């Protein structure tokens, strides 16, 4: 009975998000390969992808250190990306093992999250004193005037300008 409950728990899918800092010394191709490798390991562990962001270069807020093959490396930049996915607890544990041995990863963070997009929508501010944005009423008035103008008067003016 107990075993069954444990098995059920292990089979339950949860939504997680992994973000990672990949070494900035990688070339574009190597980066794509590294990112592909992470995703491949994820799908091998039985993950279902929800959303992702391809790694892009960022300036780190502080210098990070990471020992790679017995040598201390310092990083001021990194490729930061994230993947949101659904996976079982067992699958996640097996996936995390692959991350620990990955030498191109500076750091990674796995958190449990929700399926929806958690990023707040960006606001677009309009300056109160901005003259380029006119209220809709003002534009209509101008259009009305243009239509009312006498055609002959317009022709005369054009002739004047041409001459």
């Amino acid at each position, binding site marked *: 009975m107990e075993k069954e409950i444990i098995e059920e728990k292990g089979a339950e899918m949860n939504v997680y998000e992994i*973000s990672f*800092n990949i070494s900035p010394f990688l070339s574009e191709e190597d980066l794509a390969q590294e990112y592909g490798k992470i995703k491949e390991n994820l799908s091998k562990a039985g993950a279902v992808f929800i959303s992702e962001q391809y790694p892009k270069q960022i300036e*780190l*807020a502080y210098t990070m250190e990471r020992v790679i093959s017995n040598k201390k490396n310092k990083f001021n930049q990194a490729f*930061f990306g994230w993947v949101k996915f659904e996976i079982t607890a067992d699958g996640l544990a097996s996936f995390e093992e692959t991350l620990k041995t990955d030498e191109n990863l500076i750091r990674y963070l796995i*958190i449990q999250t*929700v399926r929806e997009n*958690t*990023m*707040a929508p960006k606001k677009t501010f309009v300056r109160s004193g901005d003259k380029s944005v006119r209220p809709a009423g003002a534009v209509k008035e101008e259009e009305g005037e243009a239509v009312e103008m006498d055609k002959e008067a317009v022709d005369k003016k054009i002739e004047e300008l041409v001459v």
Partner: protein
Amino acid sequence: MKQDYFSSNNIKHIDYKDIDILKKFISPNAKISSRKKTGLIQKNQRKIALAVKHARFMGLLPFVAK
């Protein structure tokens, strides 16, 4: 900020990757502001504190500044 920022702007989730929002809740020295200053409800204050700590770990925000 007297009112809760997240309730008034109708933001349901607090994400550690959203550093523009997180920066509103840290001091110039990059300390997490107290609830007295942020005006958040207790639940969101806890979330923001955790989000700032996650962002610091990933190098998105500094531990100390200046």
